[in-house]
């Protein structure tokens, strides 16, 4: 793969990740939105990648942990579990494999799961299931899931809905839109609303006190996006004195730990309510971003302890007016170098194997034919 195609791939990955997070936020917001008070439901909460325990009666994995993409608690007795599958493969075999995996995953969630963030003694929480897909994949995904249901490949006891996210052009603009593609939810009002299509107004979502700042889900973001968030968090958290130093001297060195950064990046993730919710962002993600900053010369390891770094915030640095673009470019270059290195190593290994076989052939001329045959079989 060339650097430009890797750049393009990374840009698509960043966009897909953002769209996934936007879709999860929009769905959570919609499920928790109370039409009467025109506000988020009191006592409701949304969780991304929360750890649930399946019951001993689970059809696939009894007594194990599962981590659905989104868990929304509407009240002490009702909730929704959603799985986001944005971007099915166009290749029919890969699509089929993914849809079967998804069906299995949904069946795992169709269970009396433990781990809902409700107080003891409040009784069992009954949840619906939702699958969130891209509008482009919605038709064929629904078709295939229906066939699986008819054939017995997917049997769900709970209410199940397939929802799509699309970019819908309207006369006054273009909005991401949530829509119901198949099935229904227990709440008939929400089902009807989703069936009528709900335009997501991102500015409203961004201004929400609950979901406004969220940029991360429980899956690792593409590296350039993580770098962009780290860079932003660092600049936003400079002290007044550091900010003044940057403005006057054009440069400031900020020493900090990975833990500190994790704390600053916390508001970019779904709020944690207890230890069942994953810690997002994970330290490994931050370390990966910092490591690339070190490669770029934007940071260095601090001698004062492990996991401590010094960030070099400097004016007029190449690409600082387009941080994400610069990070994509750098990551693509490193990926291309890594790929080239891998290819070189593979080539060298192939040559080495070839030389060894030639030696073997010379040493054991009687078996030369068999060795040549193995040559053809080996990769």
């Amino acid at each position, binding site marked *: 793969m060339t650097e430009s195609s890797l750049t393009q791939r990374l840009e698509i990955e960043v966009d897909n990740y953002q769209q996934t997070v936007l879709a999860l936020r929009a769905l959570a917001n919609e499920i928790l939105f109370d039409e009467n008070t025109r506000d988020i439901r009191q006592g409701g909460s949304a969780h991304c990648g929360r750890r649930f325990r399946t019951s001993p009666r689970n059809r696939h994995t009894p007594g194990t942990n599962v981590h659905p993409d989104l868990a929304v608690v509407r009240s002490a007795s009702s909730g929704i579990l959603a799985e986001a599958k944005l971007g099915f493969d166009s290749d029919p075999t890969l699509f089929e494999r993914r849809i079967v995996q998804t069906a299995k995953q949904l069946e795992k969630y169709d269970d009396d799961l433990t781990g809902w963030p409700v107080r003891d003694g409040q009784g069992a929480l009954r949840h619906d299931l939702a699958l969130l897909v891209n509008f482009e994949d919605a038709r064929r995904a629904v078709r295939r899931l229906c066939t699986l249901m008819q054939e017995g490949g997917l049997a769900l006891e709970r209410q199940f809905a397939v929802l799509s996210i699309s970019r819908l052009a309207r006369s006054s603009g273009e909005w991401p839109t949530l829509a119901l593609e198949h099935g229904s939810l227990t709440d008939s009002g929400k089902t009807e609303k989703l069936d009528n299509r709900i335009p997501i107004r991102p*500015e409203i979502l961004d201004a929400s006190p609950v979901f406004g700042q969220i940029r991360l889900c429980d899956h690792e973001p593409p590296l350039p996006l993580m770098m962009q968030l780290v860079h932003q968090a660092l600049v936003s958290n400079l002290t007044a004195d550091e900010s003044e130093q940057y403005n006057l001297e054009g440069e400031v060195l900020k020493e900090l730990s990975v833990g500190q950064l994790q704390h600053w990046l916390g508001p970019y993730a779904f709020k944690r309510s207890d230890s069942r919710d994953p810690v997002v962002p994970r330290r490994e993600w931050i370390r990966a971003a910092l490591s690339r900053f070190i490669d770029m010369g934007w940071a260095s390891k601090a001698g004062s302890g492990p996991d401590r770094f010094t960030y070099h915030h400097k004016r007029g640095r190449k690409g600082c007016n*387009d941080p994400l673009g610069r990070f994509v470019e750098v990551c693509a270059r490193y990926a291309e170098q890594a790929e080239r290195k891998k290819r070189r190593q593979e080539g060298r290994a192939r040559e080495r194997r070839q030389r060894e076989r030639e030696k073997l052939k010379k040493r054991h001329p009687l078996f030369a034919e068999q060795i040549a045959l193995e040559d053809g079989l080996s990769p």
Partner: protein
Amino acid sequence: MSERDRHAELAYRALYARHSSEAELLATADAVCSAWTPLHGSLFGLSLSSREVVGYLSSGRRKTRGFSVRGDDLLRVELPVEGARGLPRGGRARAYLLVNPSDHMACLLGFPADHASVWVELRRYMLSSAISVYLRTEEFRQSLLPLSRIVRVTGFTANVLWDGSQRVKTRREWFPVQKDVQEFFGELEEERQWLRSIELVVKDADQESSGRIKRDLTFSCQKGLSGFWRTALQAVRTTAGETRGIYEKRDVQSARGRAARPLEIRYESAVFNDKRQNRRLIRVLRTLSDSGLSVFHPNPFLHAGLLDYSDGSTYTIWVTDNCAIKIIPGVRASARSLGRLCNHINECFEEGSIEEAPL
């Protein structure tokens, strides 16, 4: 020494002699202000009192830089400047700082080279407390219309879209015959131009004044400073004081309920019907000094994040509506930075009205 140099030297001595009050300073400024020795100034928001300014400029990095401030209410700010051309007393720039605690506005006044040097340094060293304020064309109109009896327009610079709305061109014009304020703004609106600066003549009672005001409220005066100060400058100052509140306390940190309060720049026409405008907006945002723009999704709707390096303010920018740019402040977003961003879009992309985004 030429006559002009001698005149400049005398004017310089008179202006920077000790003045006990604002009125006394304005009277001297009136006398020295001429085409040969114009006076330059800036109106800006200031969150500190005179006493606090003195304390602030005489300490820390400001002290190291060499700031010196004299006076109680009428402050004279001085600082050493290297290699600045046009300073009559090379090596030291001087300007007056007039602080008005009632509307938290201040004015820096001096001869052009002195004012320029002090203004640049004051903004750098008082980043969080000296806040540039900006006026839109409509706000200029609102300010000057009540003065239409005494104020006439003699020239202007304005921006206009051309090349199929793909570029902004700056137009400069000086009128052979002075124009009525209402007529001038009517023509500007008709031709869909938005102001960068306006040149005015004020004929008030027995005095005639003339000067130019830019949209960032820096000004120059060639004649009759006190008249210009009392009328045109006072009018724009009042409007600026009233309108700058819209940028305050919009970030997550300071907003009630921990939610950001978005702003929108709304246009009368569906600007973003043409999706090429998304690209143009990206290009314009990239030219905002000392900031970084990360574009997540350029088309058909625009989703970008802007980081203001000067104070760490962050914004999410959305264009989903054909008639508006939505600006959502992040965890931290200062009024200074938000005002700067909105003015940059208004000045370099297209001027719209700045409103509370409906939620």
